[in-house]
């Protein structure tokens, strides 16, 4: 079992990194990665939401939707669960970590529409993980997200200081940089 858990962790964090190999959660990746503080804050918030979302959606799908043969409601139910969890997280962060709340700004409610969160909850079933493995997978996905965000925040700060062709300033150069970072992650393919 330990072997499988380590396998899932390595797959989620490196080999199938949600941002750099699966293209999930690109909006916050491009939007919030400007400085290290908010990038890591966002990464941690997303990890927490992923874990709680998996903790709720797995039993709902297995014991309610499957039992009642309502699997086609999966998308609607999952997104509602995630939306309410995000509201809850937002309220908690606003109450206890006001500076973090300010720096995350509009991107906090947008975790709802972060494909990575819905993606994890759906992929747990595509990969047919049990409850424990699903939670491990959610944690790995969140850590992979955090890793990509913090790595890329470093790259972004270098871009700020360099001379960029006029038309490439802002969003376009960010994508070109992401392309090079993701190239390095291709090296992990085939480890597991």
């Amino acid at each position, binding site marked *: 079992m330990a072997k499988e858990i380590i396998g899932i962790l390595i797959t989620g964090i490196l080999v199938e990194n949600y941002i*750099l*190999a*699966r*293209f*999930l*959660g*690109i*909006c916050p990746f*491009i*939007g919030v990665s400007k400085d290290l503080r908010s990038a890591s804050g966002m990464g941690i918030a997303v990890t927490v939401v992923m874990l709680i979302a998996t903790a709720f959606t797995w039993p709902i799908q297995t014991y309610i939707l499957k039992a009642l043969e309502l699997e*086609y*409601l*999966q*998308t*609607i139910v999952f*997104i*509602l669960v995630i*939306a*309410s969890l995000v509201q809850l997280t937002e309220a908690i962060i606003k109450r206890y970590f006001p500076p973090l709340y300010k720096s995350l700004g509009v991107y906090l*409610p*947008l975790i*709802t*529409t*972060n*494909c990575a969160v*819905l*993606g994890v909850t*759906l*992929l747990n079933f*595509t990969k047919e993980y049990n409850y424990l493995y699903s939670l491990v997978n959610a944690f790995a996905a969140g850590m992979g997200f955090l890793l990509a965000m913090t790595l890329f925040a470093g790259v972004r700060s270098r871009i700020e200081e360099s001379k960029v*062709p006029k*038309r*490439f300033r802002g*969003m*376009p*150069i*960010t*994508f*070109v940089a*992401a*392309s*090079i970072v*993701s*190239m390095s*992650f*291709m090296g992990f393919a085939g480890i597991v």
Partner: protein
Amino acid sequence: MKKGEIALNGVLKENPVFVLALGTCPTLAVTTSLSNALGMGIAAAFVLICSNTVISILKKLIPDSIRIPFCIVIIAGFVTAVEMIMQAYVPALYEALGIYIPLIVVNCIILGKAEMFALKNSVFDSFTDGVFSGLGFIIALALMGAVREILGNGSILGYDIGTPAIKIFAEVPGGFLVYGIIAALTGMLNRCYGCRRCTKGE
């Protein structure tokens, strides 16, 4: 708002993908071939048009404080419908797009348009906006798909055209790279258009 203006905004000036950087995940993930890109574009555009229209019809009934969950449920409903239709009639495409079909729910373009446009404008304007933003999305995806299929696979719509296949363009880094370059070109195109308008004295 003028219809022409809505059309131009949706397709070029505020192209949801290359100017507003919305809906980037599906744009990067499914554009490894032109046919996948078109399938995704049409599915998302259909959801966008339906949800924009319905949300605009219902806008007076939606309490302000719960408008986001309300919009998401409407969008999720249409996505589920599209998912079932695709599973029944185009199973190969359904398999190829996989998890990215239910993920249309969290496509920022659709929720963004609901929030920014459909809740504030008339039903017909919202419908028009849905059509042209959807068209902008399809064009963007098709462009990405075509470039990546030609460069990465040496084919177009599955037909071999004999150009050398540079595999990296079909892989992840190629997606980011092509996106960045097209976004820069769109910026340039928009600037040219803006200049012409200035010299005309509008």
